[in-house]
């Protein structure tokens, strides 16, 4: 039982929950990206917490954090690229209307 670890992981879980809610409930692509960012932040938090309270001697753990940060940046770049392209063709980034994509 490590209280700090529990706190950090619980915060991570809560952020994950909020992020999931946001990503699912929002109709706007940019807001969905925000939800995904929160989920990734929760992952970051867990990684750092595990590193700190379980294996502080393993530096490789921090590499995961850096990679996740890179993923966040990539996700944003690609997401916004899609947003611009979609906005250009549809004049909106409302995903409610993206249903026709499935055709």
């Amino acid at each position, binding site marked *: 039982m490590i209280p700090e670890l529990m706190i950090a992981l619980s915060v991570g879980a809560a952020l994950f929950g909020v992020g999931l809610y946001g990503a699912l409930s929002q109709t706007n692509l940019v807001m969905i990206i925000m939800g995904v960012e929160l989920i990734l932040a929760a992952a970051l938090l867990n990684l750092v917490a595990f590193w700190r309270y379980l294996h502080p001697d393993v530096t490789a753990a921090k590499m995961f954090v850096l990679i996740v940060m890179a993923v966040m940046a990539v996700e944003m770049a690609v997401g916004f690229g899609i947003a*611009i392209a979609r*906005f*250009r*063709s*549809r*004049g*909106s980034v*409302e995903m*409610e*209307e993206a*249903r*026709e994509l499935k*055709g």
Partner: protein
Amino acid sequence: MMDLSGARQGLLRGFRGLVAGAMARDLRAFVIPGEDIANARGLDLDAAGLIRAVTPRHANVLLIAGPLPTALADAASVVWAQMPRPRCILALGEVDLGPLPTADVTAEMSQAGLISGLEDLRKLLRNGAFAPDITEFDAPALSERIEYTCPMHPEVVSDEPGKCPKCGMFLVERRVSGAASHGHEGHEGHEGHEGHEGHEGHEGHEKSSTGSTQAEKAHHHADAVTSAEASTSYVCPMHPEVTSDTPGSCPKCGMDLVPQAEAGEHAHQGHHAHHGHGHHAKPASEPTGPYTCPMHPEVTSETPGSCPKCGMDLVPQAEAGGHAHSGHGSHKHHAHTPAQEGQGGHAAHGAHGQQDAHSEHHGHAGHGAAPDIPGIEPHFMSMVELTEGKPVSPDGLVMEWIDAPFGPFFPGLPSGLHMVLTLDGDSVAGAEIRGMEAAALPSGVALEDFAASLADAVPLSPVAMRELACRAAEAATGQTAPKDVLTARAAAVERERIASHLNWLAGLARQAGLAPLGRRAAAMEHRVRTAKADEVAEQATSITSLLHVALNRSLMGPKLTGIGTLQGASEGPVARAAGHASDARHGDGVYDELGFEPITQDEGDAMARLRQRCAEIAQSLDLIAEAGAIAIPVMPRAKGDGHGMATLETPRGPATLHLTLKGGMVSSTHLTTPFAALAAHVPDLIKQMELADALTAIASLDLDPWSASQ
């Protein structure tokens, strides 16, 4: 001790006394009509130690440099309303302040008057910055009243709610400025205290939505609307040939079939591009209730209520199409792609008209940047890094456009120039110049008075105007002056050309953030404006070195080159900078004897204009040296009737004056100046330019709105 008109509430005690003392020492002036006019009227603001504020928000002195036309006085009252208290007014010369409160200090229109006026102001501020009983100032141009207008017939306006006499629709309310239509000039795009009505989006939203709901209720006959009740068959949005009597998916592409009427209507509306918002209907066969949201056609309900997405009232389904159109029509501030333009107005002309009236009203009330469109904030962003090197709007990104008023007191524009720029992010999508209503020229006055009033009306080039009046009068009366007088008068015009170009240079430098260069040019302008021929000769070397500095300033080239290239101008320095050697001085006998030859540049951009004006300054120095003496034109004595016409190359280009004499008095006049022709180029010139570049381009033209409507 007289109270300060703009004192702050409270008594002057202890700490406040200290603060008032600091305020008295830290005078920050907002100059009206502008620094160029102040310079031209002989005020050296730097020498008086006055610090200028770029916005009324940062100023505590409203410096009124000379007489103002009525429209500008109204605009000045708006500026006054935007200034934080304690504030005060210093009026120089005989000024009709219009709606402004009485000036705290008035002084004569001269440098000495300015300095003594500032001293008086300091005393006043020290003692009266805080007063126990102050009154509010309300600029009449900002007060508003509610009036009612028909959404279909904008010309129908009523003070009472009711029905339109033409179509029977319910009238929609809107706010208008309380003052007459000229009362809006001010604001300068500072949506200050008063500039935000349109942003009360919530309120505006409710209002507009109820308004359009009313409109819709009376709109059952809406033409382009196909009733949803009629939709018994279903069709694929992609494959119109696929139809079915029951909902389902398309056998070709698997998409959900949509009710026929809806699909048909969509095709009719250009399918994707039609909503200003980009909220096009979802082609899905959800259970459709009788009520739907005008903005979100996918929202349907069995009961009346409000839309869960935007809160607008739901309307009966049959009207949804028409309603969506009125929604579209109301989005004037959205960019319209050509596709949208193509189909935009087919059903909702009325709504368009209404919204146009609305935006017009916003312009008037001064919050042009704030259309009260439901759900739309007039906010925007810079797209420079994404769209650099491309035409901004044609790139297909449909952005929100806003109309932002610039002027008439905008620090980066010629004073008095009032423009409305439609901004697409940081770039200019369109521009409109609102002319300045200058006072009409007097008629029925003696010739000498006429010359003086003409010179007063065009304060940026009074000597040239006087000379023009002189020449026209000479043509009318058939008199001629001796040759040496003519030469001396030409030298006076040349001296003014030097001063005018230096004044322009000072303005350009201020706009570009080159404060020291601007100060130097303004100081030089003051030395030259009233100098005698030998004094001008003494200044020649320092003027030349100033021009050298201005031309060779690092980064000046990159800033100006390629900006505002204009080949279409036909006259004046702008045309000469583009290689047209048109100059009214060419072929003029007086100038020919002085050895005048027109100078031209090739590129026609802002840098070429800078080079051109610098070259003209040098040329004028030579001409003055050649002439040897300077004499202010004196009007000939007039007797009898006659008609005279004269053309003169003013510092901004040729001006032509027609003059009719009756019984020795001026009975009618007509003045043509280069302003109108140049200003007509501006909208095309600055289209798709970055805002800063557009302002540089406008500044490089050296417009003189004061000579606009004589």
